């Protein structure tokens, strides 16, 4: 297992390096936003003195590289600065929103991942039958519809017409866990519909790719029933690509949910980011982007480790 640990450490190091590059890009992108930040924050009625004072308060009079390293030094110690809008520390602004996003993503993932893999196995077993085709058409339809459209369709049928679930997913502090699940069901379902197809089709494809291997034929010639051939003989060898796609989709659940949050008025990090961009709250923008980048890197690292752990050649060296 020593080998696995070295690989993980190497990837972690590479991940940190990537994160550093991304931080430069994010900082540069924010710099490129048109207009003066102080003016944008203060509005049109601000006097020159006010703007100047604001610039100094924000440190905008310093050169960009100096500001970048000051920001980086803060970020490394967990201090992302102060939000320009609320004047509270960025971490305090982001933390509850990020927690909400993580909650919604986990909710969707807990439903989507098992369904996708199970469905993938089942369609692999019944490949080229009517069931396979119907499942393919349905999942492809759901993946090709924009999230906001899916969201509105769900609101119309499950929210407005039947009244089974609330259309708006606002939260408050004294909700029970069950209420929380009920309240956020529609956004979670929307996201499930968006990600299931990708994972299911990868599961199906990686299993079917293995069905021509000699060990699958051997399993059949031992009299192993069809479902067991798939579950016991094909699936354990198909994990690596499946895990990678699952990780990619999990990352999407965290970083790609802006539209869903807007449709359902859900107080997640996506909405926060959009607000912050329009209001030029650049410390918040930078912190959000960095969190998204770190999420991607960590989930991909997890996928690599998962792929290694499911490969018997790496798990049990000679």
């Amino acid at each position, binding site marked *: 297992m020593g080998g696995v640990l070295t690989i993980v450490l190497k990837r972690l190091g590479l991940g940190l390096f990537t994160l550093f590059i991304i931080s430069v890009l994010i900082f540069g992108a924010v710099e490129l936003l048109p207009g003066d930040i102080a003016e944008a924050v203060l509005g049109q009625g601000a006097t020159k003195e006010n703007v100047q004072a604001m610039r100094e308060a924000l440190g905008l009079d310093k050169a960009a590289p100096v500001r970048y390293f000051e920001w980086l030094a803060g970020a490394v110690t967990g201090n992302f600065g102060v939000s320009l809008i609320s004047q509270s520390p960025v971490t305090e602004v982001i933390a509850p929103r990020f927690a909400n996003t993580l909650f919604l993503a986990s909710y969707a993932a807990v439903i989507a991942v098992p369904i996708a893999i199970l469905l993938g196995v089942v369609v692999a077993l019944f490949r080229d039958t009517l069931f396979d085709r119907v499942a393919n058409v349905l999942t492809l339809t759901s993946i090709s519809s924009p999230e906001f459209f899916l969201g509105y369709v769900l609101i119309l049928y499950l929210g407005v017409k039947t009244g089974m679930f609330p259309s708006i997913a606002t939260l408050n502090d004294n909700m029970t866990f069950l209420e929380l699940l009920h309240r956020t069901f529609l956004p979670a379902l929307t996201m499930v519909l968006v990600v299931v197809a990708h994972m299911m089709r990868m599961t199906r494809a990686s299993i079917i790719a293995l069905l021509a291997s*000699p*060990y699958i034929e051997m*399993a059949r*010639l*031992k*009299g192993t029933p069809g479902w067991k051939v798939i579950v*016991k003989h094909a699936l354990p*060898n198909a994990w690596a690509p499946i895990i990678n796609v699952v990780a990619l989709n999990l990352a999407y659940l965290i970083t790609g949910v802006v539209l869903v949050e807007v449709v359902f008025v859900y107080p997640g990090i996506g909405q926060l980011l959009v607000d912050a961009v329009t209001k030029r709250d650049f410390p918040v923008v930078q912190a959000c982007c960095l969190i998204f980048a770190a999420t991607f890197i960590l989930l991909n690292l997890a996928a690599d480790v998962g792929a290694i752990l499911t490969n018997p050649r790496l798990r049990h060296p*000679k």
Partner: protein
Amino acid sequence: MTGKKKDVLLDIKDLRIEGYSDEKWIEIVHGVDLTLHRGEVMGLIGESGAGKSTIGLAAMGFARDGCRISGGSIEFDGMELTTTSEADRRALRGARIAYVAQSAAASFNPAHKLIDQHTEAPVHYRMRKRLESQEDAMELYERLRLPNPRDIGFRYPHQVSGGQLQRAMTAMAMACRPDLIIFDEPTTALDVTTQIEVLAAIRDIVDQFNTAAIYITHDLAVVAQMADVIKVLLKGDEVEEADTETMLKSPKEDYTKSLWAVRSFQREQKSRPTGDAVPVVSVQEIDASYGPTKVLDNVSFDVYAGMTVAVVGESGSGKSTTARVITGLLPPDKGKILMNGEEMPPSYKQRSKEELRKAQMIYQMADTALNPKVRICDIIGRPAQFYGGLKGGALKSRVDELLDLIELEPSQYYSRFPPELSGGQKQRIGIARALAADPTFIICDEVTSALDQLVAEGILKLLDRLQKELNLAYMFITHDLATVRSIADEVVVMKQGKVVEQGPKDVMFTPPHHPYTDLLLSSVPEMDPNWLTTLLEERGVDNVGEAADV
């Protein structure tokens, strides 16, 4: 009913099988009959495309994807497999009819331990509890003379050697004590020394349990050791069937006789030029390694113009690595390569076009060595253009000339694609591509081992003719000693990266040998049906495994 009728285990009549290709069903087995009695071993032999495996699988009521059983009857112990339900057929597989595949390394699931794969069928059929079945597996491993029989099952397939895997697979086939086992080329992928262990193990266990078997192979000498009865197949038709003794001594059909005759091709041995002739290639004290692993240790030999040096040894002995060093694909750690007396730069990147032109290669798998999307004229034309600078009409006539040389009609093959050709034709294109550079030295890396014997013989004859006409020097990498006998002038025996012995062929094939050469030579199966028995007695039956580790 007579007692004899009761004895029949498998009765196949007028079996027809179709394969799907080019959007239609084409018959590939045309009405074959096969009768097998309890405890009997039948050898099915023939070239690729003869339908051996297809018939073997049909005996289990199984057809591969893209194949279907289209006619005839398959009666196994009174049960008609063509009409019974798939569930009933499946219930026979693993339980009463078992299968041993060609490559155990590919046919064991890499994700599970050997013993878990072994116990799967008996547990599924509720014949044994898991632990009982494990206990039984260990006992079978011991009978098959696997090392550490109590522990080896708890390993994963990649942790066990090829020969051991093949025996573990035979043990797995025995797990439910079937009435019939289909052995589908079980030793083809193994070295000769390993092959003996597996053959001996299979023969013993089939004897001990009085299991009937269908033994599929293209190797006549192997089938002679294993089978009571031999059936010869050609393109989905039966040629003839007889008991082993009769078949070997007096085959009736011409096709069978031609199979028997293959091994007789032998060209006259040439000896080194006298005087101060400079070798075309001189390998001098080469050490080489892949990363930290040393794979060649002080390898030296010379190849003279017009002569063939065969480099033999088991897999992993460093034969192909030597070729990689000569061509500059793997720069050596130490030593040098001389061509016509001039030292070559170690890496191909530093060699000039002229230096590269002199040494060309022909590969084992013509299938993968030719780009399937490129026309024959471009495959052969490319080196002629690159090294010879030919263009337009000159290039076309050079390609035509080369196609003539390899005995393929230029007008017919000029603009075809590799997938339209047979295996032997593809290998000829590989030869033409090497010749296109106008080399003085050609490395032939197992060029005949993927081919049927008759086709292989054609390739050997062609190479021999080209050598005479063009005064080429060959380095022939092979593990097949029959090929060595037929074409080599000198032999280099390699083991674990070292040259253990080298010399002229006649000397090498005459005792006394180096012990390793002796082991290699004596391990090549011979047509004599008693060869294996005699050999095992000489070596002492209980240490076949050890004999191979000398």
